């Protein structure tokens, strides 16, 4: 009996403390998409620059051991709101391990808490749970291309009070390039359960409008009073992390875009910016 009890305990402890390991690399580069040229710093899943910040998936109950390797030219840190504070440093060419043990499922945001990191888009998605569903990821980002260049070359004097962004991206892609990004371009069938992990890595709210469907707010970190609301237009304030659940009830091709209509442009050209699509088959 005693041995059985110990075995059960061991079994439970192994479930509760399952360790997963992941590594991300900080790199900087310049994005060129049509008339958009933007300096960014990105958490890459491989040891070279990748346009989109790494997406990290975990099962419910797992503990993430995240290794951050800094290949950038300035120091960074790692922050996960409510879990890992910004009082750490990942120096240039340094490697630092972090532990993230979430207490709930849903979307989380990890990011660099340093000025260069914050102002150049080093910010990514962690999705906890929902691994058996059809998953997509929208990392929203906005910037002024001139200001980003100044941050990148060190001449910026701080973030301006009067912010006037010119570039709007999903996963660091602008429309129509978003349509070739398999992370953000949603495909599925009528009746599927689709989850979309969405964070706002930018500096302004983004009011996402879904054509064709309402989505349920399955998890939300900041505007928590909206949990389980069914919405066709959902504002993500800066730093927000949300999980949308979509069960399509009709087939069709529908846009999703920010309804602040300066954001559906690429440095002024329409259409562009923060637009992607839902492609739902019968």
């Amino acid at each position, binding site marked *: 009996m005693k041995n059985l009890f110990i075995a059960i305990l061991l079994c439970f402890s192994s479930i509760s403390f399952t360790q997963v390991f992941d590594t991300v690399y900080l790199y900087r580069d310049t994005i060129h998409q049509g008339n958009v040229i933007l300096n960014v710093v990105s958490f890459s899943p491989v040891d070279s620059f990748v346009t989109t910040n790494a997406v990290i998936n975990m099962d419910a109950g797992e503990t993430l051991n995240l290794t951050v390797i800094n290949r950038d030219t300035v120091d960074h840190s790692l922050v996960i709101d409510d879990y890992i504070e910004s009082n750490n440093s990942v120096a240039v060419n340094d490697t630092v391990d972090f532990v993230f043990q979430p207490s709930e499922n849903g979307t989380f945001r990890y990011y660099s808490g340093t000025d260069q990191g914050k102002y150049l888009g080093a910010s990514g998605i962690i999705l906890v749970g929902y691994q058996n569903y059809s998953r997509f990821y929208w990392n929203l980002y906005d910037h002024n291309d001139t200001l980003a260049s100044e941050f990148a070359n060190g001449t910026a004097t701080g973030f*301006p*009070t*009067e*912010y*006037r*962004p*010119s570039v709007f991206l999903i996963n660091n892609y602008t429309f129509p390039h978003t349509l070739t990004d398999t992370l953000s371009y949603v495909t599925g069938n009528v009746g599927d359960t689709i989850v979309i992990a969405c964070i706002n890595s930018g*500096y*302004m*709210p983004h*009011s996402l*409008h879904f*054509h*064709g*469907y*309402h989505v349920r707010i399955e998890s939300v970190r900041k505007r928590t*009073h909206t*949990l*389980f*609301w*069914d*919405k*066709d*237009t959902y*504002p993500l304030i800066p730093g927000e992390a949300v999980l949308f659940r979509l069960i399509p009830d*009709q*087939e*069709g*091709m*529908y*846009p999703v875009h*920010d*309804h*602040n*209509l*300066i*954001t*559906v*442009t690429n*440095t*002024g*050209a*329409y*259409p562009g910016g923060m637009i992607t*699509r839902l492609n739902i088959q019968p």
Partner: protein
Amino acid sequence: MRRICFIILTIFPFLLIGQVEHVYLQSKMDATITLSDGHQTNFWGYGYQSTNPNARVTLPAPKLVFEKGDSVVIHFYNNSPEDHTIHLHGLDVNQVNDGVPSTSFAVGSQDSVNYSFRVSHTGTYLYHCHVLTSLHLTMGMYGMIVVTNGDDHLYDGGPKYNREFDYLTSDMKRAVNDNPLSPGDFFHIYADYFMLNGKADQQIFDDTTLSIDYRPADTMVFRIGNIAYSCTKWIFPDELDVTVYQSDGREVPVSFQADTLMVYPGERFTAIAIPNGIFQDTIEVEYCNMSDGSTDGVNKIPIRLDPAHLSLEETLSEELNPLKIFPNPAENYFKVEVQDDQSKLKVVDMQGRIIIQKSLDKGIQTIRTSDLESGVYFVFLNSRQTQLVISK
């Protein structure tokens, strides 16, 4: 291709079920509007079709009202020199009726099409042009859609109301409307004129459909939509209990009281507002810049007790100084703080009958209400007044 779309769309009405509502809209691009400061500028918009060639379009477009379960056909005639569409924002229509040129189709100059759909949920919705949207919205091509429950409930099992006020916030950058052929870079569209149902500033005070003259027993529904580039922050006075029941045409899981309400571009809310006293105040609507959060504009909606409803001996002073009583709701008594000797207190029922009349001395005084039936009363103490609820 346009003809094929037209044929497909004209087939759809045969698939409609239930009561079919027909709406005949047109778009035009030759309208002007006088702003609150007297400046006249251009707008593009929708209006009802008419045999009158001079029929105007309006800013905002006509409010469309349907009942839950209705099948709707919007007969749209593009009476303008450029492409337009109608996007039915939030109604979850099928792809061909979605009004997006790249995934549906555009309606060319002088073309006519039918948009067919069924409204399945009560609530507040929008419609707008989805052609070159960054320009066509600031030019004014938008309106509100209301889907009612067909009775005096917000939705099946939802709260009842007896009056309704529908508010659509929008904005424009005047330089763009003044010269839409040279709008400049679209990411530089920062509004400098802010509207509520197309009105601003004093125009709102002068519009009896916007200002609120409430009656004491009113339960008002506020339908709020935001089609602006700005987000709007609604600030309600303390004397108005506002409870939010719906957002984007769906019931929120738990209704909630709101003294302020943020409404971001494209969002809608439906709320019930009940006055908790006699007051005269304003609902403030702040227009917040989405990029840096600054407040770029403010409009105010006046709200006061309907003067025509006051058939009392007393008339309310212009400078209202609400009277505080407690408990309220009360059962067998309430207390009131009297500041002067020989103060005159009256309790008046909803029909204007004086139920209690007393002369009171300075201090905290107790007024017995054992003989009063449950209901709403007015309490007057000299020139001050408030509303009393008796609950037994």
